[in-house]
């Protein structure tokens, strides 16, 4: 039995929040900081190697208390229990969401560790140069073919952790192919040597058209290189990762090269499973297990910390405050670290595919906002792109600043550390300066600059949260990602929606399938709308 999202207890809380927000709407962050010089002490939290500073959010301790009341009224604690007890929290698909099991220790999740062990064998063979192509050459390049969760998570984490080398062996060059058209795979295959290339086909269902189209292209490329070696080719050059072994076998993945995960893992929550093979090839199995351990620490924190000190809970409540009470429906994700380049697009999927919903469990459409529009970019680069809008545009935007507090030089390079440490300080300085200016506006500037023309003035009052990692390591990245995963769940409970399905992406696939013959033959145009008809005609001419 799932707990109820809505209860009678909620009404007085909502009433109190409504009254509170009438005042809060007029607050300016510069004033809040002036009123309470100890804001940082009461409005920041630490845990799992992360410092979360939400004192630059437009709220006070009182706001937080009211939001915590709302969480209680929504029975959040029961929902967290339901998640970790394996109840069917994904009610539209009648299954639990057990991604947290992927980080459990061996005694608690033996089947997970069986697959980790199998993955470890593959990783070990590749890193030691002992995974062989069909002519016996050592594999030097690995191509991950996948899309969505089978692409974004592994890509994000492999890129973020590239400084961390495997404890032994030689890391292969990793490549990611996701787009349905051949624009990524064709030039890549031109550069690669089929004899030394391993293709990892990752798809939870193993029916994803985008992925299978790319995988077919790779297979044809290998078949041209090694005609008449069909069997050796499949055994030596393809690994499959899926929750559907039958489909993998049907497609031709050798049984020994099949890595499994489970229906109870959502695609966007799957980087902890064998979908993370590229991550393990980047950092080695030891590093991958560190990543899992960092996430497990966050799981324990989420389950056990009281709501008021619970990082995912507080982050979720802050988001709800911004979206539903302050009407801030956009959020920018701004990592001040080039290694987190792919983190914004990873979060775009995690948050928007999870909470881009508008129907509650009883089928009622919601009459409030759910997930905001989320976008982002490496912060220091975004300063030269869209920060203008943040500082002087008309849209209120909440920002997540993410930065590593400590600079840890990558192992191996002898010289140049001083320069790199300096660059890190420069980046950190920019991160702090921007969040300060966004919050305080002109108030952050020296007094003599206040008499500026209007177009040079900074309004400020753009709220932000700063997440400072001790360092960007496998363990801390694991904690960071798990923090966002759980935050997404907290929000879904507050909104009364299911974060674990994605029905909104199904219909487009069906219509696209029907569109292919229309484009091929031109038949069936009459049934289409005028716009589509016009576009089809133009494309066919």
């Amino acid at each position, binding site marked *: 039995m799932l707990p109820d999202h809505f209860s009678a207890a909620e009404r007085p809380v909502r009433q109190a929040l409504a009254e509170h927000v009438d005042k809060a709407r007029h607050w300016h962050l510069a004033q809040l900081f002036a009123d309470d010089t100890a804001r940082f002490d009461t409005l920041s939290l630490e845990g799992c190697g992360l410092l979360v500073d939400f004192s630059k959010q437009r709220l006070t301790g009182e706001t937080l208390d009211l939001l915590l009341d709302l969480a209680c009224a929504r029975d959040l604690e029961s929902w967290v229990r339901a998640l970790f007890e394996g109840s069917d929290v994904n009610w539209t698909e009648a299954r639990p969401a057990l991604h947290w099991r992927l980080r459990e220790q061996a005694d608690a999740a033996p089947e997970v560790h069986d697959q980790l062990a199998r993955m470890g064998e593959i990783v070990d*063979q590749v890193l030691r140069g*002992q995974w*062989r192509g*069909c002519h*016996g050459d050592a594999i030097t390049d690995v191509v991950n073919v996948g899309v969505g969760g089978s692409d974004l998570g592994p890509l994000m984490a492999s890129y973020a952790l590239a400084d961390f080398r495997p404890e032994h062996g030689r890391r292969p060059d990793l490549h990611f192919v996701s787009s349905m058209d051949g624009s990524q795979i064709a030039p890549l295959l031109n550069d690669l040597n089929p004899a030394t290339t391993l293709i990892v086909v990752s798809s939870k269902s193993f029916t994803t058209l985008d992925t299978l189209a790319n995988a077919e292209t790779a297979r044809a490329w290998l078949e041209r290189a090694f005609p008449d070696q069909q069997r*050796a080719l499949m055994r030596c050059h393809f690994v499959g990762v899926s929750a559907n072994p039958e489909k993998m076998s049907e497609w031709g993945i050798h049984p020994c090269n099949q890595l499994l995960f489970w229906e109870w893992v959502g695609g966007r929550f799957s980087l902890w499973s064998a979908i993370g093979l590229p991550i393990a090839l980047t950092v080695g199995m030891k590093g991958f297990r560190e990543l899992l351990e960092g996430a497990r620490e966050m799981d324990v924190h989420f389950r056990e910390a009281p709501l008021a000190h619970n990082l995912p809970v507080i982050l979720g409540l802050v988001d709800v405050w911004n979206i539903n009470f302050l009407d801030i429906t956009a959020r920018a994700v701004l990592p001040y670290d080039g290694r987190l380049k792919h983190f914004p697009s990873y979060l775009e999927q995690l948050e928007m595919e999870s909470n881009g919903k508008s129907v509650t469990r009883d089928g009622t459409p919601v009459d409030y906002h759910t997930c905001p529009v989320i976008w982002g970019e490496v912060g220091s680069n975004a300063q030269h792109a869209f920060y203008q809008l943040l500082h002087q545009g008309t849209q209120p935007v909440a920002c997540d600043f993410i930065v590593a507090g400590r600079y840890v030089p990558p192992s191996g390079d002898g010289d140049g550390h001083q320069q790199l440490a300096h660059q890190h300080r420069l980046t950190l300085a920019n991160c702090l300066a921007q969040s300060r200016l966004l919050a305080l506006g002109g108030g952050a500037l020296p007094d003599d600059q206040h008499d500026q023309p209007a177009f040079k003035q900074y309004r400020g009052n753009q709220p932000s949260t700063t997440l400072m990692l001790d360092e960007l390591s496998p363990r801390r990245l694991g904690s960071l990602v798990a923090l966002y995963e759980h935050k997404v769940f907290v929000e879904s409970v507050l909104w009364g929606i299911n974060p674990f399905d994605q029905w909104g992406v199904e219909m487009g696939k069906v219509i696209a399938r029907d569109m292919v013959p229309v484009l091929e033959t031109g038949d069936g145009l009459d049934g289409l709308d005028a716009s589509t008809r016009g576009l089809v005609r133009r494309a066919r001419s």
Partner: protein
Amino acid sequence: MRIDVFGDTLCASVTAAALAQSGHEVCWFLPRGRVLDAVNEDRVPYREPGLGDLLGEQRAAGRLRCAPMTLNGDPAAPVVFLALQPGAQTLAAEIADWLASAGACGLVINQSVFPVGTSEALQRRLAEAGSPARVVALPETLQEGVAIDSFLRPHHILLGCDDPAAETLMREILRPFNRRRDVIRVMGLREAEFTKLAISGMLATRLSYMNDMALLAEQLDVDIDTVRQGVGSDPRIGEAYLYAGCGFGGSGFSRDVMSLTDTLRSKEVSAKLLEQVMEINERQKEVLFRRFWRHFEGEVAGRRVAIWGAAFKPGSDRVDNGPALKLIEALWAQDVQVHVHDPLALPELDAWAGGHPDLILHDDPYQAVADVDALMLVTEWKLYWSPDWPRLRDSMGTPLILDGRNIYDPDYVRGQGLLYHGIGRG
């Protein structure tokens, strides 16, 4: 003349023995370790043909005395040879400091393989400590397996020397080995050190070049061995070091090339050619594995393979850096059981393998091949050149001969009912 030799390299042992044989009173100082232990127990420290006898004779005659290196006690001899392990520059500096304090030494001959410039640095160190001793560089050019002969009858001697008096003394010491014609080539200290590395680099380049040609030969269906003879008959090229094969090994040769590569890199000169040379060599070490893999289309788990020859070259008991090791690791990684025969190198191989269950050592080459799916010829020991083909064919599970040194006649072997693959032979 009293001469001290410092070090526990093969070069040190040969130098000490050969100088004693030519009448000098030699004291050989060894740092603690395997070689010193062997010498103390009257065992031969290196399995080098003739070395045991020579050391024994000279010690019995009283001209050669062996002692642990303590850097105190007797004052140093007027002439001191340094033949230390590669990388032991710190030890060399310590010895130099002691020589300066012990007074009597006038000439230091550095035979060790150190980075270019080390001999000069030693010279400065001695001078700063107030020693009048001169340093000369005499890079070792010993070939393992024929080390004694290459010391006694050298084809050439590189002498790095900046001082006329030191050169006179060196010529006197080398006189017994420089009789037929003057093979001493005198040059600067750095030049001598660099020449030694450049020679190794050139030889390695020739080998890797031929191995690349062998790959092409296979594609073009020509026999690289025929091509080799044609190429080698051109006097501008010559015959040496043109054999395509399953890669070179040994500590000295590859180490020199790596040292040269590092030197180039540290001076920010691109080391692309030598990096390629080493990479091709590493690739070549697995060429027999790849043949085996292709033959069975990758289905090799649970099979058995025999390897003849694990030493990095015939005449040596050393296996370090040799192709056999890489080959065995590749086979183990695929769950293949490896049976090895080698007349000298099995103890070293055994020590390297550390009791791996998939390595079985054999004293008899024919026992090693029983029921195997392939025989890989890795080191061309003479005893492998003319096997009993029918016996091989009948005892092997799959009569697949993978000839890593192109020593067999492909047509003859095939005519005996066996399958044959060489390196670059179609």
